[in-house]
């Protein structure tokens, strides 16, 4: 029972890791907490739903479509709404993306309605058996896909010029600009890549259970707790934190009550922000007095 819960938790945690890495990368480069990331995920889920329902495509293939669609949407949102506040105080961007999240929730409600939808390809209710344990196929495929996409993103970050300029911008925007990185373009690509990762994550999320436009708030809470636990801006931290939360939620559902499992991420946020605001892997650097 315990090991089984652990397995389920790790599978879910892998998906969380993909979702949270998008949020944390956007923060790392732009110092913006994109509260609308939860809405991006749900939007990816609805795009997957439509493609599956109308075209009969398997959600695991729709991932590509959802990613591209969300990349484009993210790019557009960046230029319309986010770019003007990039240099503004954090408060401004938090309020802006908070408003954006509800705006998108309303738009999704118009397009897809407010009744919960589920994406149910043939394998949703079946499991693979490993000895006495079982691996639900939807979670397993979602997990594998999440790992593949994260590995691809990691390759982009470490092996391409784009990735190097993103990392350069993350460590010092001014220095990156001085050595010829076009910051505005990098920021746009980062934001769009973050949205694309949410699009991919949304496709996987759509397999995991029913969702409505309002689910965005549940997801953004989860993601926030993960990035806060992992240390804002740290991708490895986010991965570790995602696994911790996935396992924690699974344990909570099994041993306490599924009703309280959403509260776990909130308690995590409280605990970490009150005790160790820099998270697990976030180091507290010299907050220079000369800002």
């Amino acid at each position, binding site marked *: 029972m315990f090991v089984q819960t652990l397995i389920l938790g790790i599978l879910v945690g892998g998906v969380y890791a993909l979702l949270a890495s998008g949020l944390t990368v956007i923060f790392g480069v732009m110092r913006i907490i994109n509260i609308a990331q939860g809405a991006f995920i749900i939007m990816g889920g609805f795009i997957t739903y439509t493609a599956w329902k109308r075209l009969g495509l398997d959600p695991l293939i729709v991932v590509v479509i959802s990613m591209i669609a969300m990349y484009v949407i993210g790019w557009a949102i960046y230029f319309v709404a986010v770019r003007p506040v990039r240099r503004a105080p954090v408060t401004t961007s938090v309020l802006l993306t908070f408003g954006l999240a509800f705006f998108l929730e309303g738009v999704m409600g118009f397009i897809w309605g407010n009744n919960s939808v589920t994406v149910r390809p043939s394998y949703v209710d079946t499991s693979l058996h490993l000895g006495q344990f079982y691996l639900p196929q939807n979670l397993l495929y979602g997990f594998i896909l999440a790992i593949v996409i994260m590995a691809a993103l990691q390759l982009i970050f470490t092996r391409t010029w784009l990735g190097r300029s993103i990392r350069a911008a993350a460590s010092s925007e001014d220095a990156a600009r001085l050595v010829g990185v076009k910051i505005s373009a990098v920021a746009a690509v980062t934001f769009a890549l973050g949205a694309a990762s949410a699009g991919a994550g949304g496709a996987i999320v759509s397999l995991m259970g029913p969702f409505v436009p309002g689910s965005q708030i549940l997801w953004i809470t989860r993601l926030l707790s993960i990035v806060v636990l992992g240390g804002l801006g740290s991708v490895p931290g986010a991965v570790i934190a995602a696994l911790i939360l996935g396992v924690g939620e699974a344990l909570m559902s099994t041993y306490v009550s599924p009703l309280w499992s959403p509260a776990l991420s909130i308690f995590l946020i409280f605990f970490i922000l009150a005790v160790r605001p820099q998270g697990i892997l976030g180091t507290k650097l010299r907050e220079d007095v*000369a800002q």
Partner: protein
Amino acid sequence: MSAGTPGPAGPGRVTPGPVAKGSGTTTARRLSRRALLLPVGVVCILIAILPVLTGNQYYQNMVIISLVIAVGAVGLNIITGFAGYPSLAQGAFLGVGAYTAAIGSVKIGGSPFYWMVLAGIVAGFMAFLLGLLSLRTRGFSFAIITVSFLLLTRIIVQNWRGLTNGSDGITLPLPYWDRAYMNWPFHFALVALLILSLLLAWRIRRTKFGVGLIAMREDEDKAGAVGVNSPTYKLVGFVCSAVFVGMAGAVYGYYLTFVDPIGMLGLLFSVQIILAVLLGGKGTIWGPVLGAFIIEPLNEVANNQLGGGNIRLVIFGGGLVLVVLLLPQGIIPTLRKKITLYQERKHPGLTGARIELCERPMPAVRPELSPVNILEVRDLNKRFGGLQAVNGCSFGVPEGSITGLIGPNGSGKTTVFNIITGMMKADSGEVYLDGKRIDGLSPWNRAHLGLARTFQITRLFGEMTVLENLVAPLRDFSVGQLNRTAMTGAEAAKAEELLALVGMTAYRDRPCSALSYGQRKLVELAQVLALEPRVILLDEPAGGINPTLIERLGELIVELNGSGKTFLIVEHNMPFVMGLCNPIRVLARGATICEGSPEHVQQDQCVLEAYLGGDYAVEPKGEAVA
């Protein structure tokens, strides 16, 4: 603050500078205010007595909900507008108040109006808890913690069915009064609550408490450095922002005669409250009210004409985006700025005006070095990740001296400053002020003990005027202080004296954000002097300012030193340091490598090596030194 405190400048009575040019503008603003007073007053009174004028339920309902949002917004403005903390949890306090009244009146009995007081107390207590939880958070982490708080409140209400009846909600008793007066009690109770919240906000704006909150908004670390006890201010601000909202929640719940988690703890309600504050103008007294009375009619239109639900999300979510993008200042400040610009178009600005230097006798002899260290650090260590920034640093600052702290870039000078003033915690080591160990104290407590500092890149409260910056420093903390008038006549007079001392009188009413770099340095010096410190730490006072000003600064330091202030100065301008300071401490790689008189330090082999590298041929001393 006692009235007759002598200014820090013992010698040199100062001739008062010319009267600031800002006064003309102030009169004009008063006039335009008076012109507005009548129509605005009439509208307010009409709204306040609306149910007497019309029996129309639609309008009565609209005004009641507007009032609820207005009370929420005026409260939120205290923590968000004054103190700069973007709280998304305001809706939670409303819901908590409503639930307190509902549970009390159903389970125990009595009119929900009686429970209103308890609702306020419970909301205030919750705000206190949230304040405690969020003490270490700022900016986005604060926003995250508040939105989590709202969600957690909702989850608890949904799941604690024994108390709250879960998602089914609680039906309150029906009003017992005559149907003819149906909405009157709700309406007038809310009007009273709104007036009380406005009075509170108005009062706060005029006290030390309000100035402290605004200082925290502008720069919280700096506020700490000039003696503002920021955690306490934040907690009190939080409680103030929630109490009346909790009470309004009780009235609102009774008005609806039904509370449930979705209606009372919805996120959209918080969004609307924030939007009201931003739209009307955060930091102003009336802005949030104006915002609320714009938001709620929009809400009714969205509900009745446009079908509600998703359109409300689109309107208010999108509205928040638009206001942040297009009207970040809000309606009232934007209008005010337009009016001021219009009235000022004929007046030339102060840009380029000269800083007056006034003649004062210089103290003739430098005092002998005291054997007693007023400030002492022992074996400080500080590590940033892999970098040992401070490595066993120890030195003393003799009482009444002007001590110089020099060293190559990256030798740990600013970090030592940060550790001494408490803006940073050392990994190990001790700091003593006047024999008392202070390394466990908060920055404001150290400031209260007489330790003041300036910053390498000056930090002033940009939105405040020069004069307000000078009365912001606090020399102690007490609960009574919170309610003290922001600027007494005596304080203003003392601030004027300090301004005259640094020659910045003409800039008294300018916002600090409009000053040049060198001018800010002088104002910052005057600001820390307002703390009446015993030890003043200057971080690169001569950096980036012109030679005349540097000279002026040197004179000032000598003069203040003559009146008994001890200085510790970090500076790269060697002629300045060598001419001014004695003794000098040299820092390299985080440790003191040499101490002594300027002459001694200039000849020390270690110092030359640290600055110039080992293979540098030593020139005969003397030429470079002023």
